[in-house]
């Protein structure tokens, strides 16, 4: 039962990382120079996180849920500013995606979730997100 809850929390985080990996392809396509490099770097971070989550799910005897062929993006992107807005949205979705894992029974999973939530919140801020008191919690307490 404990493992089942942990797998569900890991799958939740995996879906957020898969969506971010896809979304950053769109973000990068509308950027150039330093912003493009930043998007590429952030995309790689999400791909690695996705792969590590998949491995953890497999190690628990479950099957990682496959990524979708395409994702419905929250906004149409045709300018660099819209690309940055999409990056903010992707990162905040990743923060929210790890929240269930932060309450997992296994302490190491909680630490992993918190660390990745912090990193995603930092990236969201770099892409222009305004400060948030309780990122990932909806509704805010």
């Amino acid at each position, binding site marked *: 039962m404990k493992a089942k809850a942990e797998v569900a929390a890991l799958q939740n985080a995996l879906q957020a990382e898969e969506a971010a990996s896809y979304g950053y392809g769109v973000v990068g396509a509308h950027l150039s120079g330093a912003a493009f490099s930043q998007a590429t770097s952030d995309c790689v971070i999400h791909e690695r996180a996705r792969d590590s989550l998949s491995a953890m799910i497999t190690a628990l005897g479950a099957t990682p849920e496959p990524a979708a062929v395409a994702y419905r993006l929250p906004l149409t992107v045709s300018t660099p500013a819209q690309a940055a807005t999409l990056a903010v949205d992707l990162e905040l979705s990743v923060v929210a995606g790890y929240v269930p894992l932060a309450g997992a029974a296994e302490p190491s999973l909680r*630490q992993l979730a918190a660390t990745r939530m912090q990193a995603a919140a930092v990236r969201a801020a770099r892409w222009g997100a305004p400060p948030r008191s309780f990122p990932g919690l909806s509704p805010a307490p």
Partner: protein
Amino acid sequence: MTRRALFGVAAAAVGTLWLAGCKGITALGPVPKISGDVVTLEHLIAHEEALVDLYATASRQSSGSADVIATIRAEHEAHLKQLRARLVLPPRLAGTKIAPSRGIPALPAGAAALSGALAVAERAAAARLTAQLATVPPGLARLLASISASEAAHVVYLRRSVSSR
């Protein structure tokens, strides 16, 4: 029940109460220890109070990045409110500081140095929250993880407030 039996029960009860009276409060069993969750929450509240005080000091000596400092201070106050809401205290203690202030360290002068000192405090706060996750209940762990993400992001806003000047 006969009258004699009733007297017997009553006498036994009086005897038990008398013995309990002699034992004082120990007759009620061992005094319960404060749970680890309460201690953890008290420490986190004390640290969050210190952060609010730190930003109050920073806002008095900052001229250039007052908006950012005020915004972040408001976020720490929101964190503090949520942490306090999870610690139920007797009415006479509610609203008081958990631990006496240990004094706010002197903040350096100059926007860059001030921002740097606040960033150090934010990173330490995020690390402290992460370290406390292992032992708290799941709901509190999720809240602490969210607060740690908020505090980690503060570093970006502090840096930006300096570089944009």
